[in-house]
């Protein structure tokens, strides 16, 4: 039993027993050797004291308490029959929810174990992207064992972890997890620098990045870095840095494999989930680190669609005219209506790019975790927002000489103008899902590109 668990057990005793010299001595012994327990203890005593102050400050008298309790008792008896029916319904719903993810609590009685994260539900979201069911909280020591589910968890310090399929993950602290098996993908913001993924073979320490870790049945660990940099350290303390685009393997004997190219496709679904796309169907690749040049002749996507995030928590500095996310099916001859997003709107911008060296039709469906606010579909809209919403480290077509620019750069070519391009946009009634049908023809022997910006609501 850890110090924290022992402390919890002692603090859970009835007051009289808890205040006995033996128990107080045991508590103090734990506190003097364990700083984490000390912190938990301080929170506990302040919690107890706060509760006492809140509750006894307006106590009118014991008789009033008793009178109320008796009244409540009678009222509850009357509600019993009605309640039984409701409970049966709730249980049916809860059973379905709880079986979504199997959580084995290694220390189930440890109420004092600090909360270190929570689930980000990928399903059962309302139209605003808020969960329709309670969000499960995660504590130190929780071990998550999943079979085929899509799971995203948010650690309290800022790191986000996503996976789908067979995974066995133990949560050790807000900054440390132990991956016993399976593939996970991690996105770490600057404030959670130093986040660690441990495995039977070694430890991966983050330096502000997006990376994937895969642990096989024999404990062999593969680390693929999609963005930023990590350090991989074996159990024998041998370590090496891995930068974006790189991958290394580490076996349980601590032997490091050669440097390889990162295989993003191993983590394609978790990568999308980490970046606010809860569901995807079709040929799409998410780029944590997009290609530098986004114009013709690059054939960077060829027979798939590329997507990346340009901005997160972006505050519109001035009103912006966008195509509305109204439910329906649209094409060049029937575009959504134009609306104006007010200045101050907080959004996330996704850039979608498709090009091909030969004529091709592509289809993809997305569901975002937040409501879609609008679309930038026309060439003029895209050109006008490249320098504001676009990423400063990328070259959009407008940055290239005319001969290197595509003949058409847009989605649906010229929405509302009536010229058919074959592109179609379907927006689903939930306000978070859409389907894109992209047609990439050759125009006068010159390849076309389809590009659009999707603005999705983001939290402040």
């Amino acid at each position, binding site marked *: 039993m850890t110090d924290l668990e022992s402390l919890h057990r002692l603090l859970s005793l009835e007051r009289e027993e808890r205040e006995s010299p033996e128990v107080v001595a045991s*508590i103090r012994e734990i506190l003097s050797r364990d700083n984490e327990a000390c912190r938990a*203890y301080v929170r506990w005593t*302040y919690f107890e004291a706060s509760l006492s102050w*809140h509750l006894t400050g307006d106590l009118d008298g014991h008789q009033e308490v008793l009178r109320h309790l008796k009244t409540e008792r009678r009222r509850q008896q009357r509600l019993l029959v009605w309640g039984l029916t409701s409970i049966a319904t709730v249980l049916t719903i809860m059973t379905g929810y709880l079986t979504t993810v199997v959580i084995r609590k290694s220390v189930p009685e440890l109420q004092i174990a600090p909360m270190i994260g929570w689930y980000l539900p990928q399903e059962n979201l309302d139209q605003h992207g808020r969960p329709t069911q309670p969000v499960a909280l995660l504590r130190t020591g929780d071990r998550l064992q999943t079979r085929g589910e899509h799971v995203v968890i948010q650690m309290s310090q800022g790191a986000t972890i996503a996976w789908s399929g067979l995974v066995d993950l133990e949560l050790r602290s807000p900054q440390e997890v132990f991956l016993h098996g399976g593939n996970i993908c991690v996105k770490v913001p600057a404030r959670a620098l130093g986040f660690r993924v441990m495995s039977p073979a070694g430890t991966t320490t983050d330096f502000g990045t997006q990376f994937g870790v895969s642990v096989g049945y024999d404990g062999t660990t593969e680390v693929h870095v999609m963005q930023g940099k990590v350090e991989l350290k074996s159990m024998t303390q041998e370590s090496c840095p891995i930068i974006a685009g790189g991958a290394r393997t580490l076996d349980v004997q601590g032997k490091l494999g050669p440097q390889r190219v990162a295989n993003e496709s191993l983590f394609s679904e978790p990568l999308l989930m980490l970046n606010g796309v809860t569901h995807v169907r079709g040929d799409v690749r998410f780029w944590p680190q997009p290609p530098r040049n986004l114009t013709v002749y690059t054939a960077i996507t060829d027979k798939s669609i590329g997507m990346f995030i340009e901005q997160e928590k972006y505050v519109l500095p001035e009103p912006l005219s966008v195509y509305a996310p109204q439910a329906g099916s649209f094409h060049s001859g029937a575009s959504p209506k134009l609306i104006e997003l007010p200045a101050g709107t907080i959004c996330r911008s996704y850039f979608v790019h498709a090009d091909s060296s030969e004529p091709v039709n592509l289809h993809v469906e997305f569901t975002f975790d937040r409501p879609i606010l609008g679309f930038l579909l026309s060439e003029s809209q895209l050109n006008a927002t490249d320098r504001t919403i676009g990423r400063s480290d990328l070259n959009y077509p407008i940055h290239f000489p005319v001969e290197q620019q595509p003949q058409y750069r847009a989605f649906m070519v010229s929405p509302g103008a009536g010229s058919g391009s074959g592109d179609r946009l379907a927006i689903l009634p939930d306000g978070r899902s859409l389907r894109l049908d992209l047609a990439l023809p050759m125009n006068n022997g010159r390849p076309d590109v389809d590009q659009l910006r999707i603005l999705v609501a983001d939290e402040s």
Partner: protein
Amino acid sequence: MATDDHHVDNTTLRADGQREFVRLWTAASRRVHSYILTLVLNWTDAEDLLQDVGVTAWEKFGEFDARKDFVAWACGIARNKVLTFNQQSVRRLVISSELVEQLTDAVRLESAALEQQHEALQDCLSRLNEMDRQLLRLRYTPDLSVKVVSAETGRSVDAIYKSLQRIYARLNECVSRKLLLKGTP
């Protein structure tokens, strides 16, 4: 005449000081009480010591530098009281001065989080139904035992304890959730 003026000035100053002390003490006493409880881990002792600290703080209020934090100043008095209390009491366990410093440091480091916890708790309590809130009060009402409530309401002692545990766990969960949303781990 001069004596009367001096008397009036002193009285006025004293009345102003008293008002100021009451204002500061009212705002600080909960935190001082929590700090004392952290050190002594005994409700009765903590309440006795809080009264003692209040009296000393009032007596020494003239020495208090208004530019400084009153809570920190009062906690300093409380710390000394606890150490003296340790020496005087033969039947109680003595808390080492190292542990007092360790806990004081922990309180200082956690002070922002502890205040957020207090606010979150207030909000979470307001979300409890009246029945649960009243039951929870039992834990903090010294003269009202669970047995008395059991006899009066017709509910078993065990049922009342279980209800209390359930409410407490829910409250704890609610506070933790709120702290996480505020970015406090």
